[in-house]
């Protein structure tokens, strides 16, 4: 177990370093001078040079990278060109909104996918299976922004049950936080849930066809015991992987939904950084997304050694 965990962690660190090089290179390849953008239209050469020097942009790229990555390890991702705030602070400010939305979305997704996918697999070609197929196809194909707008029109506009947009911090007003969360979480949850429903269905169908299910029935187990311990327990394995990927995607900021619902998450932060050529913020955000992806994959792999005894840890 520990050997495997250590090996996998080291692998992730190496990949993260590679990603950091790519992120740094890509951001610096993008056209546009952040110093000029920060200074506006009227400035003199001395102010320009001073800001350039203060931001370290006059150094060779390799030196800039070395400085960036060595301070990033200590949690210092530099200072925003635009606001002058530390990037770490900017990210931490956005984190609660993103975590709330991602957590609630994956919850909505699983609440849809597990029952619907399982029932569809148990009764293939039934009315419910057909309905599940249609709903998940719609969920996958309809653009998120459209779905979000429709939900706002119906539940915020006509029915007035939930606020149309905005985020209320949990620490300020738990009830308001929950209410503000419903519509964006349902929007992203429907999309992720549709993907997961298809996956649950095929995963359960495959588990149902396994020969050990017949052994379990031949033992005289009841349908519930057979389903829980010999079908769902086995179908869970591939599902964990896909759920991990979906969660990583949700945590990396769902830009479109964040904009529709004026949700102050990491996606918006990254988008604003791109528009402002705010290198430090952009680098920090992308590095964080890569980190989240690698971390979740690591967690999924370690979870696998617990769930599937065949994988030697």
């Amino acid at each position, binding site marked *: 177990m520990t050997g495997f965990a250590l090996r996998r962690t080291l692998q992730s660190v190496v990949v993260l370093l590679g990603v950091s090089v790519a992120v740094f290179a890509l951001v610096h390849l993008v056209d546009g001078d952040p110093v000029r953008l920060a200074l506006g239209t009227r400035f003199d050469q001395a102010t320009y040079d001073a800001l350039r020097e203060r931001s370290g942009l006059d150094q060779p790229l390799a030196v800039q990278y070395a400085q960036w990555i060595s301070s990033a390890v200590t949690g210092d991702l530099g200072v925003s060109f635009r606001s002058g705030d530390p990037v770490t602070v900017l990210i931490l400010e956005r984190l609660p909104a993103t975590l709330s939305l991602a957590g609630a979305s994956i919850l909505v997704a699983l609440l849809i996918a597990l029952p619907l996918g399982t029932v569809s697999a148990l009764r293939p070609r039934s009315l419910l299976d057909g309905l599940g197929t249609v709903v998940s196809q719609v969920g996958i194909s309809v653009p998120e922004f459209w779905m979000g707008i429709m939900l706002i029109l119906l539940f915020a506009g006509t029915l007035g049950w939930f606020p149309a947009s905005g985020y209320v911090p949990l620490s300020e007003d738990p009830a308001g936080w929950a209410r503000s969360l419903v519509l964006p979480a349902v929007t992203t949850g429907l999309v992720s849930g549709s993907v997961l429903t298809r996956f649950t269905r095929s995963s359960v169908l495959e588990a149902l066809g*396994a*020969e*050990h299910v*017949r*052994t*379990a*029935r*031949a*033992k*005289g*187990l*009841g349908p519930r*015991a057979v389903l829980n*311990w*010999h079908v769902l*327990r*086995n179908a869970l*394995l591939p599902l964990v992987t896909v759920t991990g990927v979906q969660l990583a995607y949700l945590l990396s900021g769902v830009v479109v939904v964040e904009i529709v619902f004026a949700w102050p998450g990491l996606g918006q932060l990254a988008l604003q950084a791109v528009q402002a050529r705010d290198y430090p913020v952009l680098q920090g955000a992308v590095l964080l997304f890569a980190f989240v992806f690698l971390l979740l994959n690591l967690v999924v792999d370690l979870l696998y050694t617990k*769930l*599937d*005894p*065949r994988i030697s840890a």
Partner: protein
Amino acid sequence: MSAGRTGHAGRAGDAQPVLEVQDLRVELDTPRGTASIVNGLSYSVAPGETVAVVGESGSGKSVSVMALLGLLPAHARVGGRALFRGRDLLAMGEPELRQVRGDGIGMVFQDPMTSLNPVLTVGRQITEGLLAHGRVAGGRQARERAAQLLADVGLPDPRAALGRFPHELSGGMRQRVVIAIALSGDPALLIADEATTALDVTVQAQILELVDGLRAEHGTGVVWITHDLGVVAGTADRVLVLYGGRCVEDGGVDDVFERPAHPYTQGLLGALPQLHDGPGGRRSELVAIAGAPPPPTDLPPGCVFHPRCPVRGDERCALEQPPLVPVALGARPDGTAVPHRAATFHDTAPGTGGAGS
């Protein structure tokens, strides 16, 4: 009901049978039409008796036993009667059948690599059956009994094996675990569906010996489904030869092997390599049966075997289905009488002479 009987003493043919199958029929709707997989199969199994059901793949042998325990897909149509200790399995509802499965009737499947759940421990897979049938008071007692069962089937260090996962055991050991599960309810009937097919020859022999020992000890009736005639010769008292979902010949194992009456049985035995020289010092030739078994969606009229039959008979074979009738008196290996029957218009039994010569 038969506990206490041991060895051949338990093989009396006139004892109340554990299982009596009467006119079993199984049909399945397929995209290519209705498949008649089992067509009027009748046999009985006495306590302590081993009945082998042999046939090629597709002859309906596996389906015929799955049907007994209601393990076929829901859209399968099953007809006839199957009396287990006097009660008709085919008339039972699912909850009633569940009480019989794994309790009165144990089942062993073909491939121990796939018939055990890979993510549950061996112990858990034995104890869940014991607990489901209320045979133990609780978890601790269930583990005790599971360890005892594993010891009974000859697993070394049974206590440690409880915590193992199937992939940590060899094929033969896994099949022993499957047998332990099948035996956990002290079954009156054990059904082994190609239980040795996926195993090495040496392991096969061990498993056959194990099951035969348990049968002798507990007086369990055994139905052994196989396509391997070597397995049949070693273990069975009686043989049923299945073709196209029908029984074409049955009788005591020696009678059927030494004096096969049906051209199909003769063909099957002729396709078996012989180690010893045939009569007259000649090496017996290996003969394959020409053609392939008919698809169950399109069974020929008359005798199901007639399109492949080497004995080119008259039109009657193509029109009329030959009934299963006695061809000789016959006996089991222990000497108790059992009729030797065959469904053919051509009683071509050589009477004397070796199989397939």
